[in-house]
């Protein structure tokens, strides 16, 4: 008869080995998962909500929770993969590097095999929302994959604002990047994305932040405005129309001055007119609109 303590040790060891395998896969460039379900599992962050429920709830309402779904629950990529420069005419030609949009809308794509990418592209073309909704920019994307920019993210590691060596599942290592605008700038755009066969240009917010906001004397980070009190909702949420209007009203003030007078540059040629002078002042950290 096996002693209960021994059995418990064996079970613990098996569990740790299993978790270790997953973490290795998450960080190894050699690990290319073969399907959507494996990719979803590899970056599954649902266990985080057991302790970080409020943050998880905030995130789940954000665009990061549905990066391939556009406004009103539509798969925004479908139209681009059906017509235009990115149109997919032969699924056999689709590879991990075919769709530049995934670089930011699904950064974990680099762990996907060509077969997994074909499955994703097929789901997009088939308007399979149930499947596409499962792909997100969850906790592990920002707190591991994007948590450092020098070198590769470490195996079995999370990155955060402070060291938490005894954090459940994986230790948290401090990464200064998490509070820096560069963290967001990894995806929220400098300009043209030229490192693909078919280049694209989506968000240019970080370029505007670097080259307009900072030179104008701006001092705040993306996180200070879009993640106040570490809120992971990260507005704007373009599906919440009133909230977007209110956010824009906060960022942009409008002043209107009027002058009613008679313009008479030549005698007996008088034109009554009104001059309306509008002044829009922005306190945002980037151009508005962008993209």
């Amino acid at each position, binding site marked *: 008869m096996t002693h209960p303590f021994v059995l418990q040790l064996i079970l613990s060891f098996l569990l740790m080995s299993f978790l270790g395998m997953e973490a290795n896969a998450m960080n190894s460039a050699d690990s290319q998962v073969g399907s959507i379900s494996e990719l979803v599992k590899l970056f599954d962050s649902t266990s985080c909500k057991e302790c970080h429920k409020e943050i998880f709830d905030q995130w789940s309402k954000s665009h990061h929770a549905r990066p391939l779904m556009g406004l009103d629950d539509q798969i925004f990529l479908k139209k681009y993969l059906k017509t235009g420069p990115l149109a997919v005419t032969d699924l056999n030609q689709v590879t991990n590097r075919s769709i530049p949009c995934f670089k930011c809308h699904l950064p974990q794509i680099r762990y996907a095999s060509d077969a997994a990418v074909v499955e994703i592209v097929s789901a997009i073309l088939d308007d399979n929302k149930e499947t596409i909704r499962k792909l997100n920019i969850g906790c592990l994307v920002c707190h591991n994959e994007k948590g450092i920019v020098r070198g590769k993210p470490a195996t079995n590691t999370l990155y955060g604002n402070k060291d938490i060596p005894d954090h459940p599942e994986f230790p948290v290592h401090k990464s200064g990047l998490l509070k820096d605008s560069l963290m967001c700038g990894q995806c929220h755009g400098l300009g043209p994305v030229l490192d693909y066969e078919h280049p694209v*240009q989506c968000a240019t917010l970080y370029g505007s932040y670097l080259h307009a906001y900072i030179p104008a004397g701006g001092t705040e980070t993306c996180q200070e405005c879009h993640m106040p009190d570490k809120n992971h909702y990260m507005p704007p949420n373009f599906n919440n129309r009133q909230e977007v209007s209110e956010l824009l009203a906060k960022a942009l003030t*409008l002043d209107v001055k009027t002058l*009613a007078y008679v313009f008479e540059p030549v005698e007996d040629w008088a034109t009554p*007119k009104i001059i309306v002078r509008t002044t829009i*002042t922005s306190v945002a*950290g980037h151009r508005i609109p962008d993209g």
Partner: protein
Amino acid sequence: MDGTELFHQQRIYMPQAGDGSSAHMVLGPDKKLGLLRDTSIQPMSALIDNFEIPLQNNQSTVTIEVKLSYQPRPGNVYPIHTIVKEIYGVR
């Protein structure tokens, strides 16, 4: 004041992208590469515009309505500000 619209003008503030090979503005992330012109509202600065509205001599009261909105797509309007001013004739 009889409700007649005397003047209507729209200004579009936006980054205007080219395709990297012509001077023709393009739309969509799959086509855009670089900028031809940028009239968007820049951070930490004021964007000033003037509108000149000619009047008829007999117009004594004019209502000015200025609307600022965000439109990611034509017809998809997110209102931002609306300012209304009454002007009681030219002095």
